[in-house]
C-alpha cells in the first residue's frame, strides 16, 4: 500500500504539470474517439445492411439504368421472396447545402424489404395512397421542421424540373445504426413525369432490391439473376447489400486511410507528451530514487513507481476524454445535421480508448523507468550536496 501512497503523492507534487498532461491526454482521446466514430459512420451503410437483401444493378455502373421489365424475371428466380426497385433521385431542397439522400422507390415492396424503417400504420397507409406523398427520416424532418401534411419541393438534378411532394409519413430507425436522414417517394410519380418530358428515359430504374428467403444461398441466387441477363443490352451485377455498400466505402478509401493515419499520429502525440512529463519527473527526482535504492528498495518497486504514475496520468486523461465524448458528440451531431447520417459511439471505441491509454502509459514510462533504475547511487547522492 505504501507504493500507492507514494504514487499519489508523486502525482500531486507537480500539480500544474500533471494537470496539463492529463488535459492534453483528454483532448487527444476525445479526438481519437471522434475520428474512430467518423470512420464507423463511413461504414454505417455496411453495418446496417441485411444478409437477406441483394442489390441488382447495371453491370456497367450504378449510373446506368435497368429496364423495369427485369422485375418480373428476377421475381421468378427460385429463392427470391420479394423484389423492389428504386432510383437515386438526387433532388435538392432549397439549396445544395441541405443535402440528404432521396430515392424514388416502389413503396409497398420497399417498405416490406426494409422493416427497420418504422412507420406508424395510419401514416403508412396515407403514404401508400398518395402518389405525390413521401416518407422522411426523423432526423431530416427535424432538421427542416417538416411535419406530416407539409408540402416540400425538390429541384431535380438527375431528373429535371421541380417536383412537389407531400410529407405523409415520418420513419424512425429500428436501431441507432439506421440512417434517419433519407427521403423516399413513389417511383411511379417520377416515371409519369418522365414520360412527358424525356420518354426515352422512362420505365427505367437504378437498382433492384431483392429479398431472399435464405441468406446462405445469396451467392447462388446472385449468379442466377446475372445469368438471366447475360449478353443482353443491360447486363446486371448482383451482390449482397453488404458487398454493395462496401464498394462505396472502397471508392473513397484514400480519405478513410488519411483519417486512420491521422488517428495514429494522434496517439503518437499523446505518447510524446506523457513521455516528456515522465522524463522530467524522473529527472527531478533522481536523487530520491538513489536514496530508495540505497535503502534497499529493488528495481521492480522503483520501476513500478514510475510506470504506475505514467499509467495513472494517461488513464485519468483517457477517462475524462471518454466522459466528454458524449456531450461533445451531441454538439457535433447537432451542428452537422443531416450531413452525418449515423454518428454513434460504439463500446469498441471506448474500450480502444482505454487500451490505448494503458499502452501509452506503459510506453511513456518505460525509458524514464530505466533511467530511474539505472541511476548510480553514489553520483546521484553526491548531487544533493
Amino acid at each position, binding site marked *: 500500500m505504501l507504493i500507492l501512497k507514494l504514487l499519489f503523492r508523486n502525482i500531486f507534487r507537480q500539480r*500544474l*504539470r500533471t494537470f*496539463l*498532461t492529463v*488535459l*492534453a491526454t483528454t*483532448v*487527444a482521446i*476525445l*479526438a481519437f474517439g471522434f475520428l474512430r466514430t467518423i470512420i464507423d459512420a463511413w461504414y454505417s451503410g455496411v453495418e446496417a445492411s441485411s444478409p437477406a437483401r441483394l442489390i441488382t444493378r447495371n*453491370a*456497367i*455502373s*450504378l*449510373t*446506368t439504368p435497368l429496364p423495369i421489365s427485369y422485375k418480373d424475371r428476377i421475381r421468378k428466380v427460385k429463392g427470391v421472396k420479394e423484389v423492389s426497385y428504386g432510383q437515386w433521385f*438526387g433532388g435538392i431542397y432549397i439549396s445544395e447545402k441541405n443535402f440528404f439522400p432521396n430515392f424514388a422507390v416502389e413503396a409497398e415492396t420497399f417498405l416490406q424489404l426494409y422493416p427497420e424503417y418504422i412507420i406508424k400504420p395510419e401514416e403508412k397507409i396515407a403514404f401508400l395512397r398518395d402518389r405525390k406523398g413521401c416518407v422522411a427520416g426523423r432526423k431530416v424532418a427535424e432538421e427542416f421542421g417538416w411535419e406530416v401534411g407539409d408540402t416540400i419541393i425538390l*429541384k*431535380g*438534378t*438527375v431528373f*429535371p424540373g421541380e417536383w412537389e411532394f407531400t410529407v405523409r409519413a415520418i420513419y424512425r430507425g429500428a436501431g441507432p445504426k439506421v440512417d434517419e436522414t433519407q427521403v423516399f417517394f413513389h417511383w411511379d410519380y417520377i416515371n409519369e413525369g418522365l414520360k412527358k418530358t*424525356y420518354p*426515352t428515359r422512362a420505365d427505367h430504374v437504378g437498382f433492384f432490391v431483392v429479398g431472399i428467403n435464405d441468406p446462405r444461398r445469396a451467392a447462388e441466387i446472385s449468379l442466377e439473376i446475372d445469368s438471366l441477363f447475360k*449478353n443482353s*443490352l443491360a*447486363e446486371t*451485377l448482383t451482390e449482397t447489400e453488404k458487398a454493395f455498400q*462496401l*464498394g462505396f466505402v*472502397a*471508392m*473513397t*478509401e*484514400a*480519405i478513410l486511410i*488519411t*483519417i486512420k493515419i*491521422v488517428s495514429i*499520429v*494522434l496517439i*503518437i*502525440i*499523446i505518447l*510524446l*507528451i506523457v*513521455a*516528456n*512529463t515522465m*522524463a*522530467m519527473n524522473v529527472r527531478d527526482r533522481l536523487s530520491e530514487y538513489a536514496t530508495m535504492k540505497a535503502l534497499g528498495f529493488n528495481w521492480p518497486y522503483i520501476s513500478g513507481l514510475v510506470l504506475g504514475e505514467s499509467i495513472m496520468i494517461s488513464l485519468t486523461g483517457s477517462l475524462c476524454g471518454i466522459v466528454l465524448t458524449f456531450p461533445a458528440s451531441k454538439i457535433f451531431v447537432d451542428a452537422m445535421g443531416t450531413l452525418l447520417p449515423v454518428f454513434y459511439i460504439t463500446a469498441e471505441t471506448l474500450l480502444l480508448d482505454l487500451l490505448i491509454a494503458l499502452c501509452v502509459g506503459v510506453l511513456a514510462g518505460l525509458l524514464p523507468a530505466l533511467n530511474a533504475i539505472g541511476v548510480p547511487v553514489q553520483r546521484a547522492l553526491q548531487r544533493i550536496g
Partner: protein
Amino acid sequence: MSLFFTYNMRNLLTRRLATVITAAGMAFVVFVFSSVQMMAEGLKKTLVDTGSFNNLIILRKGSQAEVVSVVDRQKALIIETLPEIGISPEGILLSAKEHVVLINLYKKDGDKPSNVVIRGIDRASLLLRERVRLISGRMPLPGSTEIVVGSAIQKRFKGLSIGEKLRFGLREWTVVGIMDAGNTGFSSEIWADIDTLMQTFRRPFYSCIVFRLRNPQDFSSVKEKIEGDPRLGLMAKREVEFYREQSEVMARFLKILGNSLAIVFSIGAIIGAMITMYAQVANRIQDIGTLRALGFQKRDILMGFLIESIILSLVGGVVGLIFASLLQFLEVSTLNWQTFSELAFRFNLTLGISLKAIAFSLFMGILGGILPALRASRINIVEALRMG
C-alpha cells in the same frame, strides 16, 4: 539580445530529450495541418487545371455533372451554329459534342471496382484540351471500338495496357493509346469515339458541348444568348468554373476536417510546449536570479523564454513542413462525390499553405511559452538566488 539568443540555444541543446520530444510534437501537428490542406488544394488544383478559361461547357439546366446532363441532337445543332465559336488555323470548328458514361473497372490492388469516366470524343475534343498529350500509341479512329486511356487510370486499373481488350456494353474495346494530361482530370479518363459509344449504350443524346470562344470577351453575351433561349433549357459555364464547382464539396470537407484536426492537435502541442517550458523555468530559477541581479529587466527575461519557446516551435514547424512537402511526390486517387467518378491527384504545397503552417507553429510557440515566461519574469530575485 544576442547573449540571450546563445543562452537559449545552449539551453535547448543541453536538455536534448525534452527539446526533441516537444519539437517532434509540434512537427506532427504542422505535418497533419499542412498535409490535409495540401490534399484539399491538390484536389482543387487538379480540377481547376482541367478546364480552360476560354472554353465554354454547355449542359442541361440544373445538372451538376456531365453524367446526368442531357443535350438533344437538335439542340446541339443550334449551339454549334453560334457565330461566337472559334475556328482553328486548320479550319476546324472548335466545338465538340461529347458523351460521358461511367463504367466500373477493377483496381490493380484489391478486387473492388471503382467508377471511371468514359468520354466519347468528337473531332475537336483533343484540340480543345491543350493539356492532353498522347504519350504512346494513337488516337481512336472514328467509328471504331478503340480507346485511349489516361495515364493515372492506366497505372491503377487492371488490363489497360496498349493492345489489351476491355469489355463493356456488349463490345470489346481495344486500347490503342495512352494519354497524359499532367495533373488534370483527363488523366483519370478513358476516351472513345462518340458515335460508337452512344450507339453502344443506346443513348441518343449528348452529355455536353464544349467550345472555344472566338473572342474571350464574348462570354457574357453568349451565356445570355444560350440561357435565354426557351427552346434549349441549357446553361453555359466557363470550363474552369464548372470544374472548380466539382471540387467544392470534397475540398470543403477536407478543409473542415483539416482545420478541426489542427485545432485539436494544436491544443496537445501547446500543452506539450507549456510543460517543457515550465520545467525549463523551474530548472533555471538560479540562472534567472543571477540574470536579474546582473541588471536584466523583467521584460528581458520574459522575451528570453518566449524566444526559446518560439525557436522550439519554429524548428518543429519547419521539420513538419519538410516532411509534408515530401508528400508532393505521392499521387492519390479517390472517388469524387460530386461526379461520382475516380479522380487521381497530387498533394499540392502552395506558398499560402507553407506560410499558414509556419504562422501556426509560431502561434503554438507563443501560446505555449507565454505563461511560463511570465512566471519566469515574476520570480523574486532574492528568493531565486537563495534556492542554490
